[in-house]
């Protein structure tokens, strides 16, 4: 037992491996938020008038709102006037290829183990890299555009495809949705836009790397993915951030639209700076992610591996509007030290014969608090709706907490909804079994935790599965249970 505690200590002491700052000139506007700042952001991004109006409307609405307090998280009051809302790495010149990208920037990504060059050459993954707020390089774009796929930064989309952006932006997550979505709508600086035309199966995994770099710069990305009839896309998102003392705010919005028979697979590995072992610093991550299965027979699948951030407030949801649509949510949330996570999903069954599946695994260590909060709603007309939810929590210390708050609302007599949740620590018998066979305690725990999370990890695309497993291993190192 003593050994166990010591090793847990070690795990707790583990340093954040991705903590470094890239020294690049950045174009920064002063701290604070007001209409002028929004005008400035819009101007800097050279946006059309309607976009500015949209932002101002969202800002006006945001001013009427109060910050929500219902989540099971505690944090000091955020001073929204003490945040820089726009920071763009200064482009030295117009870039035509990867070779022209700032070498320092490239080496940053190499440290993270995702060299663009290598990825481009070896894996065939198109990477739209977001460094702070502006897309630096976009690869494989031409290849994609040949088959009609539009994959670019959201700012570029506003310039080049205003009709699409106008039509879909805010249609899934309206600016009035919640406090953080309204804030994002007002000040979003960048993000990705992806459009898959009818009948196209996107030949490669689309991925983007978000990285918060400038001190005090909150990042507000906005991602919009539209999959037209009978199309398919798999989108990857991964995050790491450098070590900082001051809390950084992150309020992203992700919108997915799946038309008839379309399928969107959205995977996330989130490893932002979680703060030091006293709970100082770390990213505040308030994200609104929602997808709508608009057409019949469409499918949206969320997979997430959350190991970072001081605070995670995130509920990727699916609105099952079309008939025969499918929503999925797979999640592993690992919290350590003083991290707090309040995460889960919403499955809103509206159409007939809709199905959803939720698998959420929470692992808490140190002094962390890990909550699952979810909603499954079968509306009156959701005939034959079917849901299965499973949330399991694993506790790796006696100072941490694991909580579940599932809401289930059923109004249709043909709906079948099932939910189960368990909370426990690693079984002594399982540990004993491993140790008896000569596996040291540390490895045994890693083995058991890996098994615990396997069901979710299996859902990740190859490229991410490896990274995710590495991340979990880093978090687990030394934490013998």
């Amino acid at each position: 037992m003593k050994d166990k505690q010591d090793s847990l200590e070690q795990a707790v002491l583990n340093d954040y491996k991705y903590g470094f700052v890239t020294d690049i000139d950045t174009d920064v506007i002063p701290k604070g938020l007001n209409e002028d700042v929004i005008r400035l952001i819009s101007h800097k991004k050279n946006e059309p008038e309607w976009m500015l109006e949209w932002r101002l409307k969202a800002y006006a609405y945001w001013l009427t709102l109060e910050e929500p307090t219902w989540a099971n998280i505690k944090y000091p009051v955020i001073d929204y006037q003490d945040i820089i809302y726009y920071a763009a790495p200064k482009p030295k010149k117009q870039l035509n290829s990867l070779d022209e990208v700032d070498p320092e920037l490239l080496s940053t990504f190499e440290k993270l183990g995702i060299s663009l060059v290598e990825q481009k050459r070896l894996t065939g993954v198109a990477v739209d890299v977001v460094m702070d707020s502006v897309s630096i390089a976009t690869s494989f774009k031409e290849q994609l555009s040949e088959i009609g796929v539009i994959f670019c930064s959201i700012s570029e989309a506003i310039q080049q495809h205003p009709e699409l952006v106008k039509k879909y932006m805010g249609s899934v997550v309206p600016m009035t949705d919640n406090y953080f979505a309204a804030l994002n709508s007002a000040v979003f600086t960048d993000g990705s836009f992806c459009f898959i035309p009818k009948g196209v199966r996107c030949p490669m995994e689309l991925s983007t790397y978000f990285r918060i770099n400038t001190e005090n710069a909150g990042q507000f990305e906005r991602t919009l993915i539209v999959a037209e009839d009978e199309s398919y896309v798999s989108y990857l998102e991964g995050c790491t951030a450098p070590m900082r003392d001051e809390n950084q705010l992150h309020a992203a919005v992700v919108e997915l639209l799946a038309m008839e028979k379309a399928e969107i697979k959205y995977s996330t590995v989130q490893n932002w700076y979680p703060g030091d072992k006293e709970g100082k610093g770390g990213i505040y991550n308030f994200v609104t992610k929602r997808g709508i299965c608009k057409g019949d027979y469409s499918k949206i699948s969320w997979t997430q591996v959350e190991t970072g951030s001081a605070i995670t407030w995130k509920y990727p949801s699916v609105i099952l509007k079309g008939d025969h649509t499918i929503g999925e949510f797979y999640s592993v949330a690992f919290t350590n030290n003083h991290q707090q996570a309040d995460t889960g999903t919403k499955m809103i069954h509206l159409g007939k014969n809709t199905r959803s599946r939720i698998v959420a695994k929470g692992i808490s260590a140190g002094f962390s608090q890990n909550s699952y909060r979810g909603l499954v709603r079968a509306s009156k007309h959701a005939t034959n709706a079917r849901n299965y939810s499973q949330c399991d929590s694993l506790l790796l210390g006696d100072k941490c907490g694991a909580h579940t708050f599932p809401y289930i609302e059923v109004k249709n007599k043909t709906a079948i909804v099932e939910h189960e949740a368990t909370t426990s620590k690693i079984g002594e018998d399982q540990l004993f079994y491993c140790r008896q066979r000569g596996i040291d305690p540390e490895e045994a725990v890693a083995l058991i935790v890996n098994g615990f999370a396997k069901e979710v990890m299996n859902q990740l695309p190859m490229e991410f599965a490896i990274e995710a497993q590495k991340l979990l291993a880093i978090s687990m190192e030394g934490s013998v249970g």
Partner: protein
Amino acid sequence: MIDLTYFKEQFEQLQLEDADEHIAAIRKQSFDTFNKAGLPTFHTEEWKYTGISSLFNQTYAQIGHTITAADVAALRMPGHHKANELVFVNGRFDFSLSNILSSDTEMKVLSLKDAVNGEYRDLVGKHLNKSTEYIKDGIHALNGAFITEGVFIHILKGKIPHHPIYVYHILDSRQHHTLAQPRSLIYVDENSKLQLTETYVTLGSSDSFCNEVLEIVVEQNAIVEYYKIQNDTANASQVSTTHIRQVGRSYVHTVAITLNGGIVRNNMNLILDATGNEAHLYGLYLLRGKTHADNHTLIDNRKPECFSNQLYKGIADDSSTAVFNGRIMVQPDAQKTNSFQSNKNILLSDNATINTKPQLEIFADDVKCSHGCTVGQLDEEALFYLRARGIPKEKAEVLLLQAYSADVLAHIKPMAIRAYVEKLIYEHLSIV
């Protein structure tokens, strides 16, 4: 906006009556809470799915009643001739209608007023109104503000009373809308046993609203069996709070049956405040018409090595609404806790709604906790099996629903009560 001046007037009136200082302090404090918190709304998390503001749109009379012994005789549950019968009329304990068979050496039944003025002064002072530590809403405080003629029961040390206790809550709504706020405290001493069955009856066709708080304190090695039967009229609403504190290593077994009523809200709180406590909670709600039933359970595991198990099953038909909210808390000290919960629902109509929300809040690591809940329908194959054997559809459905209920009914230990509930359920389900 709901006008609450009625309660203010009533409260001022109540202040004129003389009361023990302790009781007066609770009233005062509760009334302040009520004024501050107001009535719960849909924005109050604990009341998200249950709106009770409609109950406050009218005035209730709190005048005398005309209930006679003959009225009580008509409402009796089987086995009554061997039971201690306690009768509350419009929320006030009525000695003259009650019938206590057990002797003073087994159990003592006193009005709260007498208890607080006599030998039980300290005990009542120590244990009364502890429920406010867990329930902070206005509706609960309203009961505290009007603590009047409640009852205090003491099951004496080492005694297992030969006769169980039946409690009848009678609301006389033959002329007026009636509000009743019964309040009781039961002290189950060491090595003793309490068997209690509560039921609620509204007479007349006017509305009634019963806002009950029952506190039970369970000492070392004591056993509590508690049955609640709610089969009142469609215009009878109630908020019924049962707050059980297991302060010594003890055993608690409860079954709550909800069949008919208007808006029915049950708060079943179990505070496991000693090492090695055990609690079993069962519930069954079979709803038809417009009945709205909301079962809130709370298990707070405060000490190590406690065990609790919950099984709540329900059916919602017509335009009824069933709500289940089960909360399990495990405090940092409560290592080796085992706590399980299961909630199963059958939805029989598209106008009915089922909302369920199991919650786990765990702050200790060496625990085993789980919850599960389902919403579904009757098994098609089982129905087919029965119909293939010549049983008509309606009958087959009743049969299956009876079987579904049996899981819970099997936990009603006194045979007389179980047979009574089975009969009620059969009648309830057979109405076409």
